[in-house]
């Protein structure tokens, strides 16, 4: 399915983290991770994004050493770590439920990794204080985890993962249990910390907004494979296949068949007979079935704005939703009832009425012909 996209990081030679043809099966029957190839340079913030069960946690656990790869090699700093036990890998981890030791105070929790590394008491205390200050939890050292709120526990977990100064930090849905506002705040703090400290971070989430706002690069997982590995803007603007297009952001799809293909430009005959021009992404030739995808915000109702080579099509208004900053309109287009367009609430914007038949349009380069 994933053919020609760029999976490997360009500077693959001096990769800090590398998965090479890694496979994983728990039961010996099904592969949970299928041929994973991934390299990360030092200091990168990489997010694994994907629906639940797509194998993200498994990848993270293989990297941390809690699961063994069934096949393939995992390298850290150029050295294979397949046979190194977790406690010798020196990788910081933040767990979804924080995993703060309930029988220890916050300070003891933070001192734990330093203690097992046999650091002196004075040095330990100094590092603990620094780490707690770093997450603004300085006054809470003597409390127990149960006496802290979710957000505070989250910060402590972060501080604990960082206090022994690991070069690589793994986070498995660390913000999953927080409310929206706190989550947005913590996203910001985590990225800032990671960049300030120059830590390499692998971050797992199923929340696409989180992935897009935090990461240098995002690896979209589905079905045990990386579907696309790209910076957030590229992922959104140029989804490599229809899964990514659907999974990231909102997307309109129209099913059809390739009529003709010339280089990147294809014409597609929709199932209802309309002919549209589109840009080929991962289709190979005429006659092939395809899904053309257009982002709702790239569709215009004022087709004149678009210029001469715009693609226009008739649409019937089914629903008009006022959402404050934008208008969201559901249309019937080429036989589909779920075609969405978004228009900005600007002074001259027309408010559509239900039942109205209009003409909508888009530029062919915003219309991407993907695998069906």
């Amino acid at each position, binding site marked *: 399915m994933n053919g020609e996209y760029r999976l490997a990081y360009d500077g693959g030679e001096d990769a800090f983290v590398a998965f090479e043809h890694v496979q994983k099966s728990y039961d010996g029957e099904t592969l949970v991770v299928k041929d994973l190839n991934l390299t990360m340079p030092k200091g990168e913030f990489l997010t694994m994004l994907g629906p639940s069960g797509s194998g993200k946690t498994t990848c993270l656990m293989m990297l941390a050493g809690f699961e063994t790869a069934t096949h393939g090699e995992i390298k850290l700093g150029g050295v294979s770590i397949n046979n190194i036990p*977790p*406690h010798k890998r020196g*990788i*910081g981890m933040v767990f979804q439920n924080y*995993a703060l030791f309930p029988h220890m105070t916050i300070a003891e929790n933070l001192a734990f990794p330093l203690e*097992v590394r046999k650091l002196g008491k004075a040095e330990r205390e100094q590092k603990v204080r620094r780490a707690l200050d770093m997450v603004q939890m300085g006054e809470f050292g003597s409390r127990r985890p149960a006496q802290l709120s979710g957000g505070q526990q989250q910060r402590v977990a972060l501080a604990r993962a960082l206090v*022994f100064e690991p070069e690589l930090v793994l986070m498995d849905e660390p913000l999953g249990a927080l409310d929206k506002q706190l989550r947005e705040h913590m996203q910001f703090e985590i990225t800032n910390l990671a960049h300030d400290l120059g830590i390499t971070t692998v971050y797992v989430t199923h929340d696409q907004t989180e992935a897009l706002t935090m990461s240098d690069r995002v690896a979209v997982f589905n079905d045990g494979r990386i579907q696309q590995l790209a910076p957030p803007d590229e992922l959104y603007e140029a989804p490599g296949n229809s899964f990514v297009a659907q999974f990231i952001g909102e997307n309109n799809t129209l099913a059809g068949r390739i009529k003709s293909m010339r280089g990147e430009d294809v014409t597609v005959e929709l199932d209802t007979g309309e002919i549209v021009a589109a840009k080929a992404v991962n289709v190979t030739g005429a006659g092939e079935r395809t899904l053309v995808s257009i982002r709702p915000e790239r569709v215009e109702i004022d087709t004149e704005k678009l210029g001469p080579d715009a693609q226009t099509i008739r649409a019937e208004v089914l629903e008009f939703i006022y959402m404050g900053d934008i208008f969201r309109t559901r249309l019937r287009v080429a036989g589909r009832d779920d075609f969405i367009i978004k228009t900005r609430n600007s002074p001259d914007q027309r408010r559509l009425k239900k039942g109205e038949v209009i003409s909508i349009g888009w530029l062919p380069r915003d219309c991407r012909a993907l695998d069906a």
Partner: protein
Amino acid sequence: MSATASDQSDAADSGPVLAADGTPLKKSLNRALRAQKLRALALIAPLLIFVLMAFIAPIGDMLFRSVENRIVSNTIPMTARVLEDWDGESDLPPPATFEALYYDLFLAAEARRHTRLGTRLNYEQTGLSSLFRSSGRGVDDVGEDQRDLLEDLDPQWEEAGFWHGLMQGNGDSDRALLLDQRARLAALAGESFQGDIGFTPGEDIVALLPQTAREYTAFALFTVIEDEDVVAEEEPWESVYTALVQDLRTADLSLYSGPGAAELTRAQAALAELPPIDFAAAFEQIDEDWIAPPVWDTIKMYSPDYTTGYFLNAVDMQKTTDGPEMRPEGERIYATLFKRTLFMSLMITFSCILLAYPVAFLLSNLPMRSANMLMILVLLPFWTSLLVRTSAWKIMLQQQGVINDVLVWLGLVGDDARLVMINNQLGTIIAMTHILLPFMILPMYSVMSTIPESYTRAAKSLGATNWTAFWRVYFPQSVPGIGAGSILVFILAIGYYITPEIVGGTTGTFISNRIAYHISSSLNWGLAAALGSILFAVVLVLYWAYDRIVGIDNVKLG
């Protein structure tokens, strides 16, 4: 004016908050909650009643029995009362005591209750059981000469009807005496002596011959209610004659003109010829022990309604005339038993912890399917009878048993040096550890299965070795399970009975075996109750200490 108005509004502000309909909010809330509370109460009522009847009440009864001692004052009430005034300085109590004992014992013997008292007092001093049994028969002969004289003098004295008329009198009757005697018999026989008996003592005769009237009333009650005969047709007991003999020595008959006045006057004159009845001598004749001071010391010591005697006994002490003191060295058994029970229960608890921890750990870390399989194995013993399991251990551990045979076969021990593993402490510890193991595994497992794997993973990611992660992170969180299991096993062990009875021999038995012995063999329920109460108190104290040291909130079952 304005001041008043503001006062009023203040009062309204600080007064009770009112509901919409004007009633105080508290009240209407209570009313709303009452139905809910009643329903909750109805739901727990069956259990509550069951617990009250099957648990709280028996415990209360047990605590009560361990100090209750009314058998003496119920069986020989008059003697007990006289003994109260005896200071115990003299060797023997005053002569009146022997007379009181005569009447008490006579009635008790009629009701066949004197042997029970003998048994009870025999716990405190051996020999008293046979003393009371023989005396029950012997009292019939006391005052025989005087009685014979009376009967020879006037055949009327052998007439049941004459006696009935004499005692009934013609005037008012004395209901108080009747009530007293009903109560005396009820206390003695432990059953109700209510109902019409066709007799009430006359007031005149009660005043004239108080002892005779008393004994006759008791006789009448017993005859009608216990023997289901008619009073007026039965010749009175010997004790009634004896009472008459005693009464006539002091009665002033000059003013009496009721039924039988002539016979009484004649009897008084004739009896004056004979020496008075010497009750002390009579008892000496029945059994010389009656003039041995220790007997009376014991009876006096145990005549109050409540006694510390059972408890003193249970801690190897005894009551003496100089207050409680330790028993002689050779007779101390209970302290040893208590210590042994505690020690062995601790050993059992400890070995259960050692064996159960790895199993519970494995159980909580295995995948669901294998965990269920293992769980069934853990629970398997529960499906086998306790008796079977214990007997199996007997077969395993005995000198000609499986384990010894295998060891001999392997050449590890010689055939002539087979190990003794049964009928001693080792046998009890082995068998009980096996039997109580599930009670340790289950709470441990339920605690351990709530410890997320992410804690140990976090510890390892922070650089801890497997051992450090276990010891510093996993183990502290599993302690509540150990606590819960330990309390459960320890408390079960400390009161265990069957297994030590079967495999314990003489050195491996528990205090509970002794309690069972006193309940079913020696029938000394008071001592059994005192031992049980002490055991109960020990458990409570240990529980309290555990709470102080470990904290009971640190115990959880999941």
